[in-house]
């Protein structure tokens, strides 16, 4: 904890990078609780299409979100190779279905470039917090709170 906290203040922050479709994204490592493999989810009635259902996470009910569909890309077809990132969003815990987790990045704030304004959709702009250029790859930093605003889930 102290280590992470120190990292945040002096050396910038640690981000966890993952692949969804052919794009790379990253979120703050502090919001990630664990990473686990895909298990079939129980479908929920009247749920938005990106809500894959719920799974049992050691006795707790964990909703699984298809991040690809949520971010407006084509819906994922989950296989055993898919990965679930268990993340804390405000007071709730959600599972994000992603294709793969690539690595953990330690970056300082000045490495984060503003989101290019080629992104047209208001929605995409709302969750993108900036982009990173790491070894020629483009990684988009997303904020989970914006991806799952409270009202969004309540309306669902």
């Amino acid at each position, binding site marked *: 904890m102290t280590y992470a906290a120190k990292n945040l203040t002096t050396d910038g922050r640690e981000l966890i990078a993952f692949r969804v479709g052919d794009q790379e994204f990253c979120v703050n490592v502090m919001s990630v609780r664990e990473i686990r493999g895909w*298990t*079939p*989810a*129980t*479908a*929920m*009635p*009247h*749920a938005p299409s990106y809500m894959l*259902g*719920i*799974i*049992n996470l*050691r*006795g*707790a*009910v*964990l*909703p699984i979100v298809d991040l690809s569909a949520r971010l407006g890309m084509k819906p994922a077809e989950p296989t055993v190779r898919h990965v679930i990132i268990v993340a804390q969003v405000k007071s*709730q*815990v*959600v599972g994000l279905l992603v294709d793969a987790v690539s690595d953990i990045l330690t970056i300082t704030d000045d490495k984060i470039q503003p989101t290019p304004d080629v992104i047209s959709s208001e929605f995409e702009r709302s969750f993108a917090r900036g982009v990173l250029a790491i070894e020629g790859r483009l990684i988009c930093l997303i904020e989970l709170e914006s991806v799952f605003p409270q009202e969004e*889930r*309540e309306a*669902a």
Partner: protein
Amino acid sequence: MDMNEIKEIFFQECEEQLAELESGLLKLNDGDRDPETVNAVFRAVHSIKGGAGAFGLDDLVSFAHVFETTLDCVRSNRLDPGPEVLKVMLKSADVLADLTNAARDGGSVDEARSRQLIKELEALANGEVPQASSVAEPVAKAAPVAAAPVVNDEGFQPVAFSFDDFETDEPALMDLPTYEIVFKPKSDLYAKGNDATLLLRDLSRLGEMSIHCDMDALPALDRLSPETAYFSWKVSLKTDKGEDAIRTVFEFAEWDCDLDVSRVSGDAAPVGEELPMQPVPFDLSILDDEPAGPIGVIEEEEQLAAQQEIRNAAVAAAGTASNVLQMAQSAARAPAEKSAGAAASAAAQSAAAQQAAASAATPTIRVDLDRVDRLINLVGELVINQAMLSQSVVENDANGTSSINMGLEELQQLTREIQDSVMAIRAQPVKPVFQRMSRIVREIADMTGKSVRLITEGENTEVDKTVIDKLAEPLTHMIRNAVDHGLETPEKRLAAGKSAEGTVRLTAKHRSGRIVIELADDGAGINREKVRQKAIDNDLIAADANLSDEEIDNLIFHAGFSTADKISDISGRGVGMDVVKRSIQALGGRINISSKPGHGSVFTMSLPLTLAVLDGMVVTVANQTLVVPLTAIVETLQPEAAAIHSFGSNQRLISIRNSFCPLVDVGRILNFRASQANPVEGVALLVESEGGGQRALMVDAIQGQRQVVIKSLEANYTHVPGIAAATILGDGRVALILDVDTIVAASRGQSLKPEMSLAAAG
């Protein structure tokens, strides 16, 4: 343990004492004249006073004291606990509860009300206590008038004292051996919460006693240290109980006092000769009649005051005298607070002794609720794991080694037993909630000017703590409604040929794995015409709607519905019954009303015993596994093609024993499939929805029946209409628990929305 923790314990105990107090008073109200009940009530107030004194909660102490004084009059049969007296006392109990809460949470109390009650209580006490002529000798003031409050700036009231018993000593006593006891408490005795008065009183129970207080050690006021014990007592006791019995009285105090017990000859005369003053005979009955707590205190106060008066006789102008009195009082107050606490524990001791014979209380411990919850969660996991284990054993080993299977079976039984026992930890009687209701009835009866009697039955019915906690709010609403709307005014009641006093009956009982709470009033019943008109006025129903009586009755559960002509403080703001309905539903319960015009209404709530597990039927719908709560299912049946009838555009009915029941395709309602399934291929579950109507739920297959642990969907997701909760099955997968009532409501054409709809209300 720091002070706050101790204080917290005190307040917890206060709650128990208040409950005890109230139930005792209610028993008295019902005509119980058992002295033990009176004692229990007295002890409760006394313990609160004692504890409050220890924490310096002056408001609480002074109120409790007056209350206690009045109760003491009842205890000594000087005051008959008639209905009027009990009314004041019940109100006082409410104020005492308010004061306790205020002391805990720092809130404010209605001071005018408590002052008024203090006056009423004092009037009750004084009305029956004869004011005796003053006795000049200070030592004789050892027993104050019961009505004198601890903090009384006016001074001290003289004491009624009877010498009669001693003038004519009974011959039988003359022959008994006499003991001389010199009892000199150290200040530690008071510091540890003992009270000389109580010890002396216990002593007096052993036989004929005369007592003398030695105040020689008392210094002048300016040198007086309030924490120091100055008095000692010389007691001459005639008893046949022997020296051991005397020593037993001082058993808990013997290290903190100098005690000298010696046998003297046949009568008390030698004791008197040794003493500097003539021993004053002590009227045991008066001592017994006094409130246990403050005697010692007042005694000291009075003696102090008296001494001061003598010392300052020369300058005793009226003004200065009262000053001195006040000084003396403040000096005495410090030990006063201490011994109040002392009295509490001492009283508790004697109470414990008395109660031990009557009812051996089962020992209990206080446990943090979080710990219990954690245990319950873990046991839930254990049950799931055990189920997963048996399933994988069955899958991997089809023919099954008998030893493994037997072991598994035993494990299954054990886990089930553990689960039941753990659930039982959380089970609590509904009594505290019911008791709170009696207060609400009193308050509303007062406000509305109605005369109401609350009868509670089955208050020891046990139910999960979470259910109890959530029960109070809807029940309060309902009681308010019952008294405010349900019961008529006394005049109207008399005109209708009923007794002026309305009755509200609150009953709890177990019925088929649920707790059923019934609230019945003998009022006017629901005025269906008025309800109907109101519903039409509020656009809730069409003016020409044809509703059954039951449907009209259920309209009152609709949001924004109130038939009260004028909006009162109590009810009629249009919130109420819909809130009640919603909170009962949130608990997985159902509520029903039945009403007879002129005879009153009965609200019936059926609630699950626990919110943690439920017995369910595991079914398959469109390849999804669902759990249907067993309590909702009336029967299951295999539909035959001939029994299915199409009705309207897309409705289907199933005929069951010559009656038709709408068929509800669960898969369709939950949007699991696009088109309706063929009923003949599935199974129909006949369910009873809360409106009373039956529906046949179509599912594809029944997998079995099992107890499931309820997991909240809301914790990490959100409420899903049609789904009550989730659970985890033996294979580790999540299954959804069906909310039968919303499914049925949805089948009537309403969309599946969490909001209340008219159909859901009806």
